[in-house]
């Protein structure tokens, strides 16, 4: 019953969104109450639909096909609920619900009605496209009338607190770009030069960018501790596909500042928003259709991939068409050595990074389509091309942070960074000497990260003495986060080590300063798995920790997975993963990682997400009352 209600609510929402799309395209003053009512009811209906599916999962309603395929009574309740977005159909419903919620939030902000009404209309058209796609190709509400007593269960890799909440946050990031996109479409239809783009777009870009930052960081952390390979980024297509809109949105955030100051980069901003939205659609397409081999992808029917490609063509065509037809005026030209000039240069470098990632991710797809066989682009491609870019970016960041608007006197500020440059150079030379050459890329990252970190730390100290506005703190937090991330990456490579060891009853292994001794084994039984647990004593001479990695066999579906065991003091991670049990009794292969500074990678990500929050707080305080 709940499932049918949810299904009908969604269908009704489709029609209401269609009406909203139609009315919104001609937003006279009389249409405001109508459209607002449509937005409100759309939000109500999609929430009803979303909750209905959630209830079906929570109660293990196996008359719904979706619940059968993705759930099992033995699962803990929280994972029954999060199973809703663990698969294709449910996650699309989440997408639609997020779109509806953001639309509702957007309708509460005060904007000139002709702009806002039309934007709400475009958002209605987006809603129509996605709900139609769901109902036709990926309906989560399909029923079966011989309801089985048990479901097929959920992939145990997804039964994890980190991953349970990763999709909604990441989706907020993807869907969040829809609001700026709809606004831009609306502004292109009724184009006037020098609209307050920064004021109007900024909060939505911040929500989207912040959510993507948080989602990507959480995904990276999850991959590190669950997948058992001690890596936090694999340049896997699914990761890249989240990174690309993130790069576009970062560029957008900076370009909007330039526009707020001088009205510069206006045409570029309009185009960039369209690009960012199309990239988030590409992300959806690549994740959904299983086209590329990747660490995780939902296997899926080609009709879905084609459907999303169709949506991409429609919205992309619409956006680019409106962009081409709008009578865009040439914005003032950019003076190279000014704040605006630095921001423009930043955009150029980020677009370069974006093109590199785009090319590396999509080239295999192109080759495959034209029959050239199947190929993968290895991680070194991305590392070699992108890490050197951190040098100019950090320089721009350090300089830009010190340059106040209108100040053209860049030279003395550049000199003020000299001390940071010297210290960093010394640090790099030290590691180069210590490692007898050392991995070049990590050294580059170290140099860039430390220059930025030192410069920003200096600025922050100054900021503590004199009062600074919240946006200033936000900017420096984000930049600091980026430098902390690069430092974490570089130091982990330069200082860490990884070993595969054989441990047994009489075998003690040594890895650097660490000694590992096998203490014992036991069997563990839980809700939906049974496991063999191996207790290992890890000692560095002064302290000993007992870590207990496991090999779990899940019941539904039948799958064996390793559960890693870690010890961290906040600044480094010691990591153990069980390999195979060997033929000799009591002997195991164990993978040991010593990763100093790796948590900095995620601290950096969290700092950047925090800066988005600071920016939003600033906007909320200062926004015009509705």
């Amino acid at each position: 019953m709940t499932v049918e209600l949810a299904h009908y609510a969604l269908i009704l929402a489709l029609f209401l969104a269609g009406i909203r799309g139609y009315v919104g395209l001609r937003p006279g003053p009389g249409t405001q109450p109508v459209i607002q009512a449509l937005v409100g009811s759309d939000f109500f209906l999609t929430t009803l639909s979303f909750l209905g599916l959630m209830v079906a999962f929570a109660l293990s309603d196996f008359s719904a096909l979706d619940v059968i395929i993705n759930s099992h009574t033995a699962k803990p309740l929280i994972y029954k609920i999060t199973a809703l977005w663990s698969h294709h159909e449910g996650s699309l419903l989440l997408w639609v619900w997020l779109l509806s919620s953001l639309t509702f939030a957007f309708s509460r902000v005060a904007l000139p009605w002709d702009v806002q009404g039309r934007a709400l209309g475009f958002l209605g058209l987006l809603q129509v496209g996605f709900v139609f796609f769901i109902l036709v190709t990926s309906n989560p509400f399909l029923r079966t009338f011989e309801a089985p007593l048990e479901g097929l269960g959920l992939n145990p890799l997804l039964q994890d607190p980190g991953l349970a909440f990763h999709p909604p946050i990441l989706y907020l990031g993807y869907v969040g770009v829809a609001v700026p996109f709809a606004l831009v479409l609306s502004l292109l239809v009724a184009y006037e030069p020098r609209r307050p783009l920064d004021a109007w777009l900024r909060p939505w870009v911040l929500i989207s960018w912040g959510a993507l930052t948080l989602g990507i960081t959480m995904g990276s952390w999850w991959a590190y501790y669950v997948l058992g390979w001690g890596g936090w980024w694999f340049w896997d297509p699914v990761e890249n596909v989240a990174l690309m809109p993130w790069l576009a949105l970062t560029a957008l955030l900076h370009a909007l500042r330039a526009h707020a100051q001088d009205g510069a980069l206006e045409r570029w901003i309009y185009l960039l928003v369209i690009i960012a939205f199309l990239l988030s659609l590409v992300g959806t397409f690549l994740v959904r259709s299983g086209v590329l081999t990747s660490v995780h992808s939902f296997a899926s029917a080609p009709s879905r991939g084609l459907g999303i490609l169709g949506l991409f063509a429609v919205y992309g065509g619409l956006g680019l068409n409106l962009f081409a037809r709008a009578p865009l005026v040439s914005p003032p030209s950019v003076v190279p050595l000014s704040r605006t000039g630095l921001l423009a240069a930043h955009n150029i470098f980020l677009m370069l990074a974006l093109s590199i990632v785009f090319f590396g991710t999509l080239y295999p797809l192109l080759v495959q389509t034209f029959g050239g066989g199947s190929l993968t682009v290895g991680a070194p491609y991305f590392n070699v091309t992108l890490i050197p870019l951190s040098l100019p970016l950090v320089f721009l960041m350090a300089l830009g942070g010190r340059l106040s608007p209108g100040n053209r006197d860049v030279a003395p500020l550049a000199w003020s960074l000299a001390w940071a440059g010297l210290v960093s150079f010394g640090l790099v030379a030290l590691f180069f000497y210590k490692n007898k050459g050392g991995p070049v890329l990590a050294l580059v990252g170290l140099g860039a990260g430390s220059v930025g970190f030192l410069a920003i730390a200096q600025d922050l100290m100054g900021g503590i003495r004199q009062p600074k506005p919240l946006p200033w703190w936000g900017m420096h937090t984000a930049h600091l986060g980026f430098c902390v991330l690069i430092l974490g990456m570089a130091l982990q490579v330069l200082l860490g080590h990884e070993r595969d060891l054989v441990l047994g009853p009489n075998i003690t292994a040594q890895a650097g300063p660490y000694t590992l001794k096998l203490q014992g084994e036991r069997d563990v039984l839980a809700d939906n798995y049974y496991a063999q647990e191996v207790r290992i004593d890890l000692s560095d001479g002064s302290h000993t920790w007992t870590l207990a990695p496991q090999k779990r066999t899940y019941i539904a579906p039948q799958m064996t997975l390793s559960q890693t065991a870690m010890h961290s003091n906040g600044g480094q991670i010691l990591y153990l993963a069980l390999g195979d049990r060997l033929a000799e009794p009591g002997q195991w292969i164990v993978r040991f990682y010593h990763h100093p500074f790796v948590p900095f990678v995620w601290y950096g990500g969290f700092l950047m997400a925090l800066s988005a929050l600071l920016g939003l707080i600033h906007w909320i305080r200062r926004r015009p009352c509705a």
Partner: protein
Amino acid sequence: MKPKHRRALGLAALVLSLSISVGLVLYAFRDNMIFFYSPTQVTETPPPPGKIIRIGGMVEKGSVHRKGAQMTFVVTDFKNTLTISYGGVVPDLFQEGTGVVAQGTLTTPTHLEAKTLLAKHDEKYMPPEVARTLSDQKP
């Protein structure tokens, strides 16, 4: 410095850094294209020697042998087979009778020394390339 000269210098710096970037991209790309082969493709169109490649297929039942940390097994696409040896920690989803992708270099035309094994965690335990080559086999 005159504004005109300054602009020229700025432009030159930009062009230089972009060229270096593009150069790095092309260089890195050439060495990092890893092609996928099925066992049949390895015999029919052998890959250039010494290059890292990926080979995929079904793990033949009964072919997995472990000795200490080393493991050898046979992949098949039901027309040809290839032996693979691997010395690292085996991914949990690796099983006889399911699909696997191995990345490494060929030591002989029928043996691959693998550095990485990929077994996908997806409802259907078969990487798309393997599924595609297997379906291409069916007459």
